[in-house]
């Protein structure tokens, strides 16, 4: 299982998943976030089995 944290919420993904699928499911565009796993940038096309993925928003305001 892959656990994804985004804006304080946790989401669980079972079965085959990669970054593109995570973005689709969360309704996010590639331009507005980065995915990080174990402190490293996660390529969106990498197949994932388990682990924790953080969604980092890149848009800052003000």
């Amino acid at each position, binding site marked *: 299982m892959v656990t994804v944290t985004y804006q304080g919420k946790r989401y669980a993904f079972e079965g085959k998943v990669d970054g593109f699928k995570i973005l689709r499911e969360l309704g996010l565009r590639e*331009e507005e976030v980065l995915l990080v796993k174990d402190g490293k940038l996660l390529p969106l096309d990498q197949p994932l089995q388990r682990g924790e993925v953080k969604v980092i928003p890149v848009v800052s305001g003000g």
Partner: protein
Amino acid sequence: MRCRMCGQRAVIRLRSHNIALCEGCLQEFIRRRVKKAIKDYRLLQPGERPLVAVSGGKDSLSVWDLLGELGFEAGGLYIHLGIGDYSDRSEEAARRFAEARGLELRVERVADHFSGLGIPELARLDRRPPCSICGMVKRYLMNKAAYEGGRVLVTGHNLDDEVATLFGNVLDWKEGYLSRQAPRLPAAPGLAPRTKPLVLCTEREMAAYAISRGIDYILEECPFSRGATSLFYKDLWNQLEERSPGAKLRFYQNFLRVRHLFREEEPRLQPCQSCGFPTTTELCNFCRLRDRAKGKKGNPP
């Protein structure tokens, strides 16, 4: 996905450049983009000493890191705005960064200039939106520090910031603002030169750079930025960019080619009677607000 530069496994694709890059090559790519901006727009001359306005966020810490990598002797300036825990945490991030790298960081506190008041209280006192007070106060303190230190003021504005500002100015065809939206503003009496080395790098590229360099920046945003128009424009532009990769870069770079067509009469500046920095009125806005804050506290103005 393979890295275009070295063939290793890529960690990110940049559709606007039609490439994918590994971590090391991403850093090199960003350094080249910043070098290109510096050269193409004459942002910094060899020997000029930059003063980087740091907020603790990804852009300002990264531009400080990059200028060091490119051989500039850059100092930092952090302005504590007095916006609750947000200000304390962002100061911490700026300090951690500077200490870890042995860089010189100067800290200015808004409260020290305004009888103990921070931005939220000043906004209430002056009945203006916090961001309008904040912008004026930051501009003043950044310019003062850079001017008095003989430095070039550097800010971390990235391509997305510039595109959002430009878009807002174009919506209303604000000719004066358009004529002044430049990656480098020259020095003038009482004004330090100002420059933005990240104008060719997107927000996402800068976040990726910061993460890959292990820069410990704060993700938290100023509470007053919620609902800002600039965030709405950035969202629109991310939609455009998805449909048409490179749209942001084309919009901005083509604007710089025609910018000279926009003209506005220069406002007549005179030295402020109290502090001597340039202003259009007798007393500059900073000094006027400072006097108001004094009165508020029961101190003689």
